[in-house]
């Protein structure tokens, strides 16, 4: 059941209505059952994977707590188990294919074992949450959870498929479901839900049609420079609106149950530096990587250049691999790591020798431009089908210039319009919050108008969702 389907919207309406009419003590069990049913709508047997993982993690966490002298060993045992399950389902075929290439080069017999098993949805996301739970328990940051709470934490359906990647300490206190029905909070959840539907169906899906065709095969005369740049920009916009749509719908659905999930995006294409990009793009993944990978790796070195730079590239390569089992994703991660290193080198140079550069507008504008262009370039290997296509597009974008535009005008207009909207996004958000604040100041006069306006906006949003509906197309991040 896709988030942008009629069946899901109906499901949500029924689930939320029953939830708020249930006694509080029954709500936790109810939400867990609904989460299991929701996951089972994709594949009944795959429900066993997160549930079994929860059982294993639950037992290991108990060992961590009750055998403190061996807590480190138990934690690693749990982390290894979780990563092994992830590797088996997600990286098995990739690993065997690469081993076979190596064996062929060496003239040895290849490995025949490569059983095709579908990727369980959300496995990359709930694996990371399970790991964070084990580490937090080992660090005595949180108390161990009972089995019901652990299952609720992992399986809570709004964040199960593609995040936001939550921490135990921010979600578990809320999963008592003891908050009162707050109309303003719930309506804000509906806002997010409807805005997510519009982002997905109107923007991401329509861009996706052009992007899919563009990356599937090159135009008869080959890619031109303009086509290559527009394809890369269009994919950058598509993946942003697609994932932001999913995140908005996840956050919105949780709000309908009185739960606040962390934000995942903050106008990422407005980042002034590569470092800032990662504090605005997939924020909960960035936070996870910082807390559980980057910080432990670097804490002993105090930010010394060599370990810092190498770990930046290594960690970002892993972030790429986390997205998918393919060299294109790894290349994307390495490129992001290189951008971060370049900025850190510049920053270090500026602090040590050229402090006046800090105040330079040219320098700031150059980094802003570099960040936007570099992020756009990195989307090419992420989306391209193979190394040949990646090279073909990147070379057209950077040095093998050719004139002409092979695609219909609608593609260029649509990409440019969405890019323009993206440029205006933070200002529109600010305007909306100002209007919202203004309404608050004079509730009596404007309450009725506000309700009418909200109703009209919801109607427009739902109309757009229906007009542009392409029968519940999948979210890009579901494949990760």
């Amino acid at each position: 059941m896709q988030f942008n389907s009629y069946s899901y919207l109906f499901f949500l309406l029924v689930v939320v209505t029953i939830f708020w009419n249930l006694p509080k003590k029954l709500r936790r069990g109810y939400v867990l059952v609904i989460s299991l049913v929701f996951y089972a709508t994709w594949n009944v047997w795959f429900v066993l994977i997160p549930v079994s993982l929860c059982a294993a993690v639950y037992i290991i966490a108990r060992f961590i707590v009750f055998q403190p002298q061996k807590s480190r060993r138990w934690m690693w045992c749990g982390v290894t188990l979780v990563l092994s399950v992830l590797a088996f389902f997600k990286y098995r075929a990739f690993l065997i294919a690469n081993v076979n290439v190596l064996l062929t080069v060496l003239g040895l017999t290849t490995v025949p074992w490569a059983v095709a098993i579908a990727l369980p949805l959300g496995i990359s996301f709930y694996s990371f949450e399970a790991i964070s739970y084990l580490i937090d328990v080992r660090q005595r940051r949180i108390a161990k959870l009972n089995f019901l709470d652990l299952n609720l934490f992992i399986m809570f359906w709004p964040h199960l498929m593609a995040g936001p990647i939550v921490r135990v300490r921010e979600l578990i206190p809320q999963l008592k479901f003891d908050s009162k029905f707050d109309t303003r909070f719930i309506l804000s959840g509906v806002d997010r839900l409807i805005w997510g539907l519009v982002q997905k169906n109107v923007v991401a899906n329509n861009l996706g049609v052009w992007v899919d065709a563009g990356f599937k095969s090159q135009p008869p005369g080959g890619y031109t420079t303009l086509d290559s740049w527009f394809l890369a920009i269009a994919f950058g916009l598509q993946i942003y609106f697609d994932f932001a749509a999913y995140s908005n719908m996840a956050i919105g659905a949780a709000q309908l149950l009185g739960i606040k999930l962390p934000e995942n995006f903050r106008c990422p294409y407005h980042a002034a530096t590569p470092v800032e990009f990662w504090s605005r793009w997939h924020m909960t993944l960035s936070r996870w990587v910082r807390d559980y990978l980057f910080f432990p790796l670097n804490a002993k070195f105090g930010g010394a250049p060599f370990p810092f730079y190498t770990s930046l590239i290594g960690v970002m390569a892993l972030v790429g691999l986390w997205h998918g089992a393919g060299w294109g994703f790894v290349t994307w991660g390495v490129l992001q790591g290189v951008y971060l290193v370049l900025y850190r080198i510049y920053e270090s140079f500026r602090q040590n020798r050229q402090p006046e550069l800090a105040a330079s507008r040219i320098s700031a504008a150059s980094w802003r431009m570099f960040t936007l262009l570099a992020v756009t370039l990195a989307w090419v290997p992420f989306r391209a089908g193979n190394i040949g296509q990646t090279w073909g597009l990147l070379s057209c974008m950077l040095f093998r210039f050719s004139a002409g535009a092979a695609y219909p005008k609608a593609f260029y207009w649509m990409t440019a319009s969405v890019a323009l909207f993206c440029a205006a996004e933070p200002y529109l958000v600010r305007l909306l919050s100002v209007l919202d604040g203004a309404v608050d100041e004079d509730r009596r006069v404007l309450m009725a108008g506000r309700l009418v306006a909200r109703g009209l906006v919801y109607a427009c949003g739902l109309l757009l969702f229906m007009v542009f509906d392409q029968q519940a197309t999948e979210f890009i991040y579901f494949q990760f």
Partner: protein
Amino acid sequence: MPDDATVRSAAREVVANLVSRPVKDSEPLISSGTIDSLSILKLITQLEKKLHVSIPTETLQPDDFDSVELIVETVQRVVRV
């Protein structure tokens, strides 16, 4: 083992040096984006030098350094002379 006032004074100084301005003890540093991951690493090293202590990081996370108050609490909790 340095006392609370010494740790607080060192934490204030190191943080002010990193962000190039004085900060309030309760001001969020990491969650607000005031300091980034590299600054957290520098913060730990500079605190160790200033206080002549070793801060074991195995059980720590960046959030433990999210404000001057939290830094003082964290150092007092985990520090080894």
